[in-house]
């Protein structure tokens, strides 16, 4: 980037704009999952009992643990922002670290949950799936699709937060300029928001 161009861009540093942009991006993510929730609710209405039965196959305990982990990480990431605003670099690092750790725990949990299913031959495209009746088939397809997409978002969120972590370390992210962390945190809360709906729909409503 030429010096001139750099000025051209940086002149417009506008945190309000970045934050609004992030919110708008979150809107699109909400509607992305919204489409899936629509599909879910329609199939749930049509195959009521099958959905009911299939959801019994999921472990509420794992789901509940993951919910708590995510809620907790949402809080810690919010706290890291508080810390940065108070110019408390060390605490900010710790809080981001905890958040990332929670994310990892979530993924490990998910790994075991999926692993169990796959081990039993239950995964999209498997022979077992093809033998299931329509309702069960759809439930598990949706389960893999929705949680899979959600896990992908967790990974994206983690990458964002790791970038923040390094920037905090190098003091590029400080109490004067922390919009990146703000946006990373917003994105992380989005992941949490979606899980808040996924959890009761997938695990609980049986």
């Amino acid at each position: 980037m030429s010096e001139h161009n750099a000025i051209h861009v940086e002149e417009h540093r506008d945190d309000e704009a970045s934050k609004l942009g992030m919110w708008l991006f979150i809107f699109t993510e909400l509607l992305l999952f919204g489409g899936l929730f629509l599909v879910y609710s329609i199939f749930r209405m049509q195959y009521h009992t099958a959905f009911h039965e299939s959801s019994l196959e999921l472990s509420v305990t794992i789901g509940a643990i993951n919910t708590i982990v995510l809620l907790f990480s949402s809080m810690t990431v919010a706290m890291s922002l508080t810390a940065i605003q108070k110019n408390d670099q060390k605490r900010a690092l710790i809080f981001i670290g905890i958040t990332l750790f929670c994310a990892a725990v979530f993924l490990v949990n998910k790994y075991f949950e999926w692993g169990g299913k796959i081990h039993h031959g239950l995964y999209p495209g498997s022979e077992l799936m093809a033998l299931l009746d329509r309702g069960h088939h759809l439930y598990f397809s949706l389960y893999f699709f929705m949680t899979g997409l959600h896990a992908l978002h967790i990974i994206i969120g983690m990458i964002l937060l790791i970038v923040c972590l390094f920037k905090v370390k190098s003091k590029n992210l400080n109490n004067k300029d922390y919009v990146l962390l703000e946006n990373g945190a917003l994105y992380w809360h989005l992941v949490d928001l979606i899980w808040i709906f996924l959890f009761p729909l997938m695990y609980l409503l049986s």
Partner: protein
Amino acid sequence: MANNTTHTIEYKTLSIVLLVLMFLTFVTIEITSFHLGALTVTAALLIAGVKATIVMYHFMHLKYESLLLRILVAMVFVLFILIVVITFIDYAFR
């Protein structure tokens, strides 16, 4: 242009919010163990809605954002609900 206008939220507030959220999660799990049919679904979704609102309001600092942004967020949810309801006009009467 105003930069760094975000309100600082105290650690304590955030912790309390977390406790409330945990409590609501617990309530959802308990409620869904009663089988009340459609009522359970409604209750679970309502609580999820409340939780989502709390997350947005406090964790996502919506409480301190402009009225405009709050309206926009509400608009997105209303739009989504409208789309779902209208789709159900087809499915519910088929």
